[in-house]
Structure formats: C-alpha cells, structure tokens
C-alpha cells in the first residue's frame, strides 16, 4: 500500500475510536456497550499494524500486539456475555440502570 495513505488510515482509526466512545456513553444496553468497546479495540489494532508497517518495517512487535489484543478481546467478550446472561437471569433486563446490585 502507498506511503501517503498512512495519515488517512490513522484518521479512520481515530474515527472508529470516537464512534466507539460515543456509543459507549449514549447506549444504555449492556450488549451495545460491549460492541462499542470492540470498536475501540479494533481502532487500536489498526494503529498498531499501520505504525509497524510504515514506520518500523523491520520489526514485528506491532503485529504481535495486534494478535494478543485480538485474543484478549475474545476472552473479554466471552466473559462479558457470561456476566450479561447472569444479570439477565436475575433482573430480566440488560439495561445498565437495572443492574445496581451485587448478586
């Protein structure tokens, strides 16, 4: 890919990050908030790959950060969904306002 496309790539990643921030703050549904968090993690991944590819082409560290972030995001999503299902069984709702007790 062309060298001049680094800045547009980083701008795309910033857009995805702030879209995730907007969704995380405005949504009140736990599953939507989880989806917004996934968007933010993906924007960080794009940054890691872009910087590694264009600024430090002799190294592989950015790729490994991306791979480990993807792995940890999978574990985090699975745990979050387990917690959401447990909360839904107790309160019959996945709204964050209804999850106000440690049960």
């Amino acid at each position, binding site marked *: 890919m062309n060298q001049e496309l680094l800045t547009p790539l980083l701008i795309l990643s910033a857009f*995805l990050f702030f879209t995730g921030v907007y969704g995380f703050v*405005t949504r009140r549904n736990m599953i939507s908030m989880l989806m917004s968090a996934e*968007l933010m993690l993906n924007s960080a991944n794009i940054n890691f790959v872009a910087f590694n590819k264009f600024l430090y*082409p002799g190294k592989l560290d950015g790729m490994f950060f991306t791979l480990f972030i993807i792995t940890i995001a999978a574990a985090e999503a699975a745990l979050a969904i387990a917690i959401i299902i447990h909360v839904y069984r107790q309160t019959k709702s996945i709204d964050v306002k209804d999850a106000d007790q440690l049960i």
Partner: protein
Amino acid sequence: MESQSVLFYLISGLTAFSALLAVTASQLFRSAIYLLFSLIGIAAIYFMLDQDFIAAVQIIVYVGGIVVLIIFSIFLTQDSGVEMRKSEWWRIAASGMAALSGFLLTALGLVEYNFVTQSDNLVTGGVKELGRALLSLNAGGYVLPFEMVGLLLLAAMIGCIVIAVKLKELPEGKENIQ
C-alpha cells in the same frame, strides 16, 4: 489517483459508515449486523496492508467468533425486534459533541504531524516469520506472552462456565454448595 487509493477510500468509507450505524441503530440486532460489516471492512484493510495472517485472525476471531457470540446473547436475552430505550437528549448531545471535538482534535494533529515513513520492506509479516518469532526463546521472541495468553484463555473459559452455569433447583432444606 491510483486504483489502490480509490479502493482504500471506498473500504474505509464503508467501514466508518457501518461503524456509525452500529452505534446509532435503534434495534440491537441491526446494530450487531452493522458491527459485522465494520469488522469485515477492517479485515479488508489488513489485507490491503499485506498482513494476510492478521486479516485471517480478524475474520476468524471477530467475525466468526465474537459477533456470533453477541448475536446469540441478543437472542438469549431479549426479543431482537424490540426497539431499545432511547437515551436522554442532553446525554446524546453532550457525548456527540465530546466525540466530535475529540475526533477533530486528533485528526488535526495527525494531518499536521509529519510521519517519516520507511519504505524498505525487510520483514513482510508473513506467517513464517510470525510463527518463528512467536515461539522463539531469543531476544525479540514472544514465547512468554504466548504462554500467558494461553493461561488467560483457560482462566476466562473456566470463569465463563462458573458465571453462566444455571444452578439446579434443589429441594427444600438443602443448601446450594458454591
């Protein structure tokens, strides 16, 4: 403009648009489908950057794993056609303004900054190099994080089972051991 730039702008526009729809759609199921398209667009961008392995991992883990998990949990927890409760208007306005100003500030900084790009492609990031470095014990090897991530995944799996398991209803007079 070259054809590759045109393709890049097309893919990134689609990715950004579907990400925006994913956080604003009024139905949860549609939101998950828009997130799916956004993640596929990001995988396409990895393909354009010649990172085949990361693109494949992105498609397998995100598109095939996490989005399917999210859709299952939507089906388990609520009716997929129901519209979600809207937030208050002041919350939407304030967070929209905060996100927009943050994005504009970041974009301005990125446009102003001069990145010194390197063009010599010493390491292409192919599967062979990635695999050798992942299991290498020498400096620059990643065998310790690899093992730690394996442990973390095991712990997360056990934690998920413990949290989400449905306890059996015991007859009266018997305590649940947990």
